[in-house]
């Protein structure tokens, strides 16, 4: 099988997997990084969202070969040691999570959005977020994004 090299949360990794294997399963099964979650496998629910070279991606839709040479950031790599990222901190301050399963993806999506929009983020921008939260925490997600926008 081919070998692919990339970084995950700043660490160099090399994996020996089929070219088409989705990055989600490379992370979860090969590298045992389980923050990105499987929710649909077709890029719809977005529980698997991570950053690839600082851009939001649904890792269930990224082939292993397309991860080669890139920088991947998962929820596990977002905090700087014990210091949480402003989006994580806002999630705590607003007590966003319920079951928590979609939240790694929600947080990574919010990070990408705020990297793009900064404190200009609007309700209309937030409305474009497609991530599903089955517990229905959308109202607190909205508030947390607005709070984080002020602290980034």
């Amino acid at each position, binding site marked *: 099988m081919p070998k692919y090299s990339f970084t995950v949360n700043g660490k160099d990794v090399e994996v020996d997997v089929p070219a088409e294997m989705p990055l989600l399963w490379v992370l979860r099964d090969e590298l045992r990084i389980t923050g990105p979650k499987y929710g649909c496998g077709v890029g719809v629910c977005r529980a698997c969202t991570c950053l690839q070279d600082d851009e939001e991606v649904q890792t269930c839709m990224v082939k292993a070969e397309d991860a080669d040479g890139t920088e991947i950031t998962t929820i*596990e790599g977002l905090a700087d040691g014990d210091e949480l990222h402003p989006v994580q901190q806002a999630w705590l301050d607003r*007590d966003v999570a319920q*079951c928590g399963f979609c939240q790694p993806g929600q947080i990574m999506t919010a990070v990408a959005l705020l990297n793009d929009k900064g404190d200009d983020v609007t309700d209309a921008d937030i409305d474009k977020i497609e991530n*599903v939260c089955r517990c229905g925490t959308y109202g607190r997600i909205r508030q947390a994004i607005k709070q984080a926008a002020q602290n980034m």
Partner: protein
Amino acid sequence: MVHPATDHEEAAPPSGTRRRRFLTYVAAAPMLTIAGKFVLEGEAAAAAPVAGQLPLPPVSGLMDFGDVMEIASAPTMELMKLEFTGDNKVRFELPRLEVGQGLNTAVVMMLAEELGARTQDVVVELSDARPELMFNQFTAASSSVRTFWKPLRQMAATARSRLLTAAAKKWSVSANGLVTQGTGVVGPGGRKATFAELAKDAAKVTVPSVPATPKKPSEFKVLGKGLNRADANAIVTGKAHYVSDMKIPNSVVAVVVRPPTLDGEVESFDDSAIRNAPGFKGTVELSTGVAVCAEYTWQAMELAKKLEVSWKQGPIAGMSSSDIQEKLAGMTGSLDDAVSDGDGDEIDESFDFAFVSHAPMEVNYAIADVRGSSAEIWVPAQSPQVAQKDIAAAIGVLDVKVHVTRAGGSFGRHLFHEAAIEAAEVSKAIGKPVKLMWTRNDDTRHGRMRPASHHRVKASFRSGKVRSWAHKMASVSTDFNHGMGDLITSTAVQSGLAKLPAAQLYFNLTQSVPYEFGSTTISLNDLPLEGVHTGSWRSVHSATFRTAEDLVVDQIAEKAGSDPANFRLENAKTDRAKDVLRKVMKDGKWGRPMPKGHAQGISMHEEFKSVAACLVEINATDPKNPRVTKAVMVVDAGLPLNPKGIEAQMMGGLTDAISTVLQAGIHIDDGAVREGSYADFKWARQRNTPPELQIHVMPATTDEPGGVGELGVPVSAGAIACAYARATGTKPRSFPVNY
């Protein structure tokens, strides 16, 4: 919960307390004095006329399902225990499932309050299946906080009195001058001793020198103030672990190839095309399909696509949702059995509700390790003892240990544990530990659903006053084979209600009409439908029940020339209901002018000894793409324990209602579920939810907590349906309206 050995120990879940614990003393068992009160209420319920499936006056005001749970759980509460560990933590194993509803956090608060412990020192873990607990290990019907409210506090108060007594002896002072705070006892002159230091002596105290009386609400320091989720930090850092994140060394992953029609059976299969593929670990025929095992998840998913299977058609092949709705519509009876009023006006309306998937974010997953005569299972189970029995029966192994894992959502889904049964069967067959997953498509197409239902509401009224009200619900049978039937029948047997089947019992223990509508009857008629997998879905019958009633209430108000909100206020039975209505009307600016295509809608719902009101505003200028733009919810949860948790439950209920009233439903086409993922099962996204949302938790109105886990669904559903009707000038009769 016991976590499986992982192959990456440093990322293991926070089971550290288990490893660190070196001194454990069971300091208290609860004293229970609660049974008597409810026997009386049961007797009152028994006085209500009950016969077969005839329409009944609602009895849920006298005795509700939460009461049944409390009675059923009481006898085994003495088997609960609090443990005081060497690192000064207080550990409690909770025989319930945390699914995101915040139960763990509420339990932490109850214990911390009564003990005088810091909330971060109280560790609540999920208990393995414990058959000796009998009915006291069943997570359902917004009953858990209510059920533990008295026994947990009594247990903690007993522990506190022993700790105080032990400290008094240690310091040779009177126990009366001592207090617990900060997970320790504080005495005169600033003397301090931690619970850990006192636990050994406290365990020997037989007669405490201070009374073990739980605190009064006026003395609360922790309860009543919002506390963040106990596991919030783990969640936002990706360290919260679910069963899908666990891995047992040498385990394989299994994905089941499932039939094209519901409950179709395998005729034959051929795995020759995949036998030599990399990672292939075997195939196992099951009653539900063919399990394909592989080393890695993605391999299993890919190999499953290539397996050739011939299928027998399932029992409802050829039947579609529309056929089912038609059958249901024929089951709501004739007009004759409702009271008619020759002088007044009459209304008779019917409503259809589609099937709805539970669709928790985490698909069905379970891990099974079956070795010879024993089995070990990891699964998020609401009814783990039933899981244990079902698994034992399926694999013919008596020694089955079931570890309960946290759930990535449930909404009723984990009352059933099909994945665990399948995992055990596969593990037994291939002789390896198995992690079995359902793909999202499997979960939507072969999982459980809220059954489709048809409602008929007939009312007669005169001079603006409702004189009779009959609500008939016909539903595809809700599967109650998860232990609850036994629970209710054994508990409610004295009440006379127990003559009814489980679904009828549940219906009668939960549904009520919260308005003074004269002679009132309600009934449920079940349509058994083999092959359709149903189950209780958050709020069970209540969301559809309330939606249908609210639309009729609005119609009557309109005919009577009354304002819909004032009409509700005038007819509400209880003061608590009137108070939440008044508050929501004021805070939500009821009656303010709305642009064309926009409207407000209002509802009130009483259940679980709580009551809520909801006022929404909707923009339905495009009726195919309506948006709830604002929602105001007011909730009276009796004695509110964690206002933040209550708000979260109400917000979640609102999202459920937006989804199921406006846009998310399941079709059955020729015996197969059409929808596959959230792409076509159109669960609400951020753009569907209101940018403006206010949730107000009322100050304490009683001295006991009411249930809140499901309360937000019906009250929001009713309000949204009414708002949509008013905004569009239509009479919506089929839900979701865009389906």
